């Protein structure tokens, strides 16, 4: 499991300034750590599609935002993704909760479609199952930054 204090520490090391989020039950466990970290601003949206436009404004304005949503919210975000990634070519970073990934044999359609949808959008991804993967995640986002590309960290979840 990826834990709040470790993810907050990792995001600060990456220079993330704003976390734009709509949590699920795993991502939600990070709330205390994210809210307590003075180097991060936690911004709450009502629907996941909003998060990309809000983050786009932050990025254009000179901040380093990170979108944090569950995969179901990624599905909801289609038109916003199309716009910020392809019309405006903004190198957005996101963490996406990968619901049911850890449940062997799960028939959850959220699990079934997460990776195909990300592939369809042409997004580079990295799967993280626990705090042990956060160093790789940091390297992945640094690589995205060097290439000026967007990137998505997939956070492995059980029931989400």
């Amino acid at each position, binding site marked *: 499991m990826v834990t709040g204090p470790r993810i907050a520490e990792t995001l600060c090391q990456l220079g993330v300034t704003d976390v734009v989020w709509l949590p699920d039950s795993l991502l939600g466990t990070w709330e205390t750590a994210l809210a307590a970290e003075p180097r991060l601003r936690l911004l709450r949206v009502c629907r996941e599609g909003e998060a990309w*436009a*809000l983050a786009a*404004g*932050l*990025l*254009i304005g000179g901040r380093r935002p990170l979108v944090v949503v569950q995969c179901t919210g990624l599905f909801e975000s289609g038109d916003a993704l199309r716009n910020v990634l392809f019309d405006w070519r903004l190198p957005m970073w996101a963490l996406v909760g990968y619901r049911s990934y850890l449940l062997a044999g799960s028939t959850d359609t959220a699990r079934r479609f997460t990776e195909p949808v990300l592939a369809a959008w042409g997004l580079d991804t990295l799967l993280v199952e626990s705090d042990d993967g956060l160093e790789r995640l940091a390297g992945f986002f640094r690589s995205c930054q060097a290439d000026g590309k967007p990137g998505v960290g997939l956070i492995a979840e059980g029931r989400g």
Partner: protein
Amino acid sequence: MNSEKWKVKSEKRMPLIAALEVLLALRRGRIVVTTMGATREWARLSHDPLDFHYLPSAMGHAPLLGLGLALAQPAREVIAFNGDGGMLMGLGGLVTIAAARPANYTLIVLENGIYEVTGGQTTAGSGTVDFAAMGLAAGLTSVREFDDLDTWRQFAAECLAMPSPRMIVLHVEPVGSNYQLPTLEPAAGRLERFCAALAAG
């Protein structure tokens, strides 16, 4: 007058361009985020480097993009336009804006009751939906509504000085059969110039 809706509403509507000209005269260094019909007219009136024409857009998201700019640039005032059709696509955004509590943010809703970009079809709730009431209920600090050009001219400066986040609903006339979104330069060049203008202070 904070947290009160000051409603000046009838069946009247004001000409869109004249309503925008009032804002143009008052913008004084503000970032202006336009979208859809507002882009069409504002791009004709203004050629300021702090204009961000959010076109192509994800319809309904201009207020959120403007919110991001306001939070990233706290020393600048930001005006974000939205149409009523766009507003209906993202009513939750009003709550997101209110929750973020930007100190430098004004949302202008241009309400004409139709989807003008697609030929003038009626929006859901046209004539009955009350955006100003929604803004207040969402928690925006200052909300005003105008349907008369002279009254808008009289109070516009005062409205822009109200405590933020502000929402101003303007009832405007449709542009009509000549409606057509403008042809703008490619987004990449516009974005680069806008960022340069921000960096220049």
